[in-house]
């Protein structure tokens, strides 16, 4: 069981390290957001007399890299199960739950690494964390959120059977989760409907957790963030494993 998880995890990491184009490609969007929003909108918010918007935006952009990378990685499983290497693992005499877990944590590690690269880039943009000691716990929260979204990606993939559905998921699940999460704006002083939506959006807790640890600004509180993230991650892992173990091809 552990051996299978390890083998599957290691493979994901190896693939990540070898695909430079994928690493660089996934950085494009966060950088664009930092430039356009951080500097562009930063002007507006400074004019309005608030603190640095760039500072506020950084955790949101890190989480953006994480949610996109991990959901995409999870959903790759649709492709893999029909043509790719996954099919080979499904006829191997190993537990499917182990394959699913290895894949989830592999994808989560890759997404966390991607988040860390974005974090390193923001330092070049002049970002400075509130406390360097809290960067490690911030990375742990990133990993927790990444595991949750990897498991969600695999769960969703088990319901969607082709790549067309993938676009649907991106537009109706990932995009709303990102824009409603408070990654781009503070959740205080927003209309009650938006606030309600944010509070049922799992990404909100990831963004809030990372933001708390990196810039010392909290909305839900770190204890709530970690509890909610863990609970949802475990739920998705459970549902995902259950679905995956029964998947037929």
């Amino acid at each position, binding site marked *: 069981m552990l051996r299978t998880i390890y083998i599957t995890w290691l493979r994901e990491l190896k693939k990540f390290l070898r695909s430079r184009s994928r690493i660089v490609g996934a950085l494009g969007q966060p950088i664009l957001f930092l430039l356009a929003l951080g500097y562009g909108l930063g002007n507006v918010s400074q004019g309005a007399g608030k603190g640095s918007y760039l500072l506020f935006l950084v955790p949101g952009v890190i989480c953006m890299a994480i949610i996109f990378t991990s959901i995409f990685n999870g959903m790759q499983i649709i492709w893999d199960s029909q043509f790719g*290497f996954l099919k080979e693992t499904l006829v191997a005499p*190993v537990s499917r739950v182990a394959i699913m877990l290895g894949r989830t944590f592999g994808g989560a590690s890759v997404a966390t690494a991607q988040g860390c690269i974005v974090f390193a880039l923001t330092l070049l943009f002049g970002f400075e964390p509130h406390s360097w000691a809290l960067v490690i716990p911030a990375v742990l929260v990133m990993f927790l959120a990444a595991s949750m979204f990897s498991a969600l990606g695999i769960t969703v993939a088990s319901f969607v059977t082709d790549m067309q559905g993938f676009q649907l998921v991106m537009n109706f699940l990932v995009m709303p989760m990102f824009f409603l999460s408070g990654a781009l704006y503070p959740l205080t002083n927003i209309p009650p409907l938006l606030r309600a939506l944010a509070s049922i959006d799992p990404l909100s807790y990831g963004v809030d957790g990372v933001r708390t640890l990196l810039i010392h600004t909290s909305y839900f509180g770190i204890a709530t963030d970690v509890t909610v993230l863990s609970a949802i991650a475990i739920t998705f892992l459970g549902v995902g494993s259950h679905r995956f173990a029964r998947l037929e091809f």
Partner: protein
Amino acid sequence: MTNIIEVKDLKKTFGRLEAVKGISLSVEQGTTFGFLGPNGAGKSTTIKMLTTLLRPTSGRILIDGNDPITHPNAVRRSFGIVFQDPSLDDDLTAWENMELHGALYGVTRKTRLARIDELLKFVDLDDRRRSYVREFSGGMKRRLEIARGLLHHPKIIFLDEPTLGLDPQTRNHMWEYLGRLNESDGITVFFTTHYMDEADRNADTIAIIDHGCIVASGTGEELKRHTGKESLEDAFLELTGRDIRHESASGLEHLRRMRRARGG
């Protein structure tokens, strides 16, 4: 002689579609079995049920004495498979693909290393062991998949249209390997193909499936004699008719096209 594959009244329905309508077949250990049929006849569905990827609606399967439903892992250890679509990891090297397979099947490290060397030589890929699979041609990928499928010493090897898109040279090479293996290790070969001459030349026994039913079985000679035809191709057409089959453009077919478009 014992039957290594034993199938009785096997049925699979998808909603209202009956893909496999209660087929029975048996394959003797150490023989080469050709499973033929037009597109959409139920070949792939049957192979998926035999290889634990799909649950039968009803009926019974025994692979080397084990039931794929109750003892999937015992069944999985007993066969190797080459799928219709490549299932190698393009981002890993030939050797790494082999190594990963060995590790997944729990082959001990020492045996694994020796066996990988032996098999890569066997399929003439020894000099390319450090190359990424993405650089391989279709024929090389097939050879590597065969080598990988044999790594854990399976008793049966399933080949789903293994020679699709291969040139005659590579095809001959491949059958030569399989013939040698069949002789030396007594491995049972279960394959599907659309090339009737290939089936006639290599299969000890043939079964023809159409519309989810087995319409004929026997040796190539028997099928030809039975239908009074000169070639297996004519016998096949006599048995399955000349209509062109409309395989529904399933999600899978769509994905396959997209994959080709991407150059996968």
